[in-house]
């Protein structure tokens, strides 16, 4: 099966409630069908925006595909307990790719 290339764009993390780097590292360990790469990668299938807090000031790169969005403890707008954030990221990516988790 072709792997899903997901470009990650972090906010800058000036005063984060969540460590986006740790969350993405943990998410990467949960499902080996997903490749987390730089948002500058030319062959992205999805974009993952990770803001460390709900202010969510990150600059959105131009992208027309599916966007998964983490802002503080909200994953795609839904409040998520911290330990469950990586799993919620993975489920959102798979759902957008049309794959059952």
């Amino acid at each position, binding site marked *: 099966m072709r792997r899903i290339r997901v470009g990650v764009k*972090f906010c*800058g993390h000036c*005063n984060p409630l969540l460590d986006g780097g740790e969350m993405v590292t943990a998410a990467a360990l949960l499902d080996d069908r997903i490749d987390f790469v730089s948002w500058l990668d030319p062959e992205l299938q999805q974009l993952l925006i990770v803001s460390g807090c709900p202010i969510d000031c990150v600059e959105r790169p131009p992208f027309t595909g599916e966007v998964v969005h983490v802002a503080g403890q909200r994953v795609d707008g839904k409040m998520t307990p911290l330990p469950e954030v990586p799993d919620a990221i993975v489920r959102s990516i798979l759902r957008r790719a049309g794959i059952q988790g």
Partner: protein
Amino acid sequence: MPLKDGKAYRESLQPLKMNVYAFGEKIENVAEHPLFQPHINAAALTYELAHDPLTEDLVTATSHLTGLKISRFTHIHQSTDDLIKKVKMLRLIAGRTGSCFQRCVGWDAMNATYSVTYEMDQELGTGYFQRFRNFLQYIQENDLMLAGAMTDPKGDRGLSPAKQVDPDMFVRVVAKNEAGIVIRGAKVHQTGIINSHEMLIMPTMAMAEEDVDYAVCCALPTNAPGVIHIFGRQTNDERRLGGGDIDQGNARYGTVGGEALTVLNDVFVPWERVFMCGEYQYAGLLVERFASYHRQNYGGCKAGVSDIIIGATTAMAEYNGVAKASHVRDKVVEMVHLTETLYCGSIACSCEGAVTPSGAFFVNPLLANTVKQNVTRFIYEIARLSHDVSGGCIATLPSEQDLRHDEVGKYVEKYFKGVDGVPTEERMRMARLVENMTGGTALVESMHGAGSPQAQRVMILRQANLGHKVKLAKELAGIKERDSKK
């Protein structure tokens, strides 16, 4: 040229071979001398973070000159969003270094010079703006670090530049020819200058016609012939020169920015690097622009520094077994409140920024000056609360050598222990961090950096719109405006 990383930045310092003195000696290799390492490390981190996916959104920007990705520290603010990102970036980096990372002074100098040269050209028909754009592009393309050189020695503070007994108390133009100008004098308290590539000289205050030779703004390399840097001492700086890392408190990044007295002994500056030469009417505007940009910063970087002080204080309370005491929790709350109040001010003056005729954005100067005024008090209060909660050991701890000593080490270990489960060494490390960040040189920066409190009060009064306030009061008090013609 791509964005430098920390390694490339360090390497770029090697060939500069600046004329630097410290502790009565000429320093042959600044880039490798232990006295300067913490400051170089802090500046290098600003280069590193531009490459870190987690932080690059704040630490880089898109050049309005070239459309290329550049360090935000060389960017001219194009929107209020840029101004806000500046504050957030400063908080981010200060939260990593716990000390000054030096690049904001030159950045603010560039933003101020950019908009003021544009306005000067519009009114006086000079050609400074394009020159400055060329210089800026050079800085951006080579990702250089620039020191912001404003403060003159000033001699007798009661006298203007032209009236000083010694005419060198303010930097002045002593000669001009077809190729350029020659400047003489000195700049004091120069943050990060011994590990910067360039310096941007600006006048220190508003000037009158008699001060025409002192109205000078220009850029020069930090290693230009005739430039001598004499490095300033800092609290406990000799702890860097041996004896382990604990006693330094923050061995990696030190304290404040590493300041120097920079002497300018008849230094030649070519015309293409001269951005004001005799236009004394614009000296005041340049100072005000620079000062307001610079005062904006302090609720960002000092919030980041305070984040660490609050963390260290909370840890000390835990190590001492008092973390749950209600007065301790309340003191920590107060520290957070003061920190976030500073941050509020910096964010607010950025949100209320406005465009200048050059297209660059400028902060709300009233709010920016208010932030810095608060910094001159709140940081002292935060330090006071930290001292209170952390305990007297921050002032009386024996040295790291005593902790490691064959005979007496066991006593230091035993009698400086706090709660069970926390090694004495960890308590000592945290106490030293508090000591480093809350005393001496670290505090003075909050008082005088970006101008002494009175300098802000002068600007606050000027921007206060008192007439409007009186009008509001009269309206409510039922006092009718008198016809001034009668």
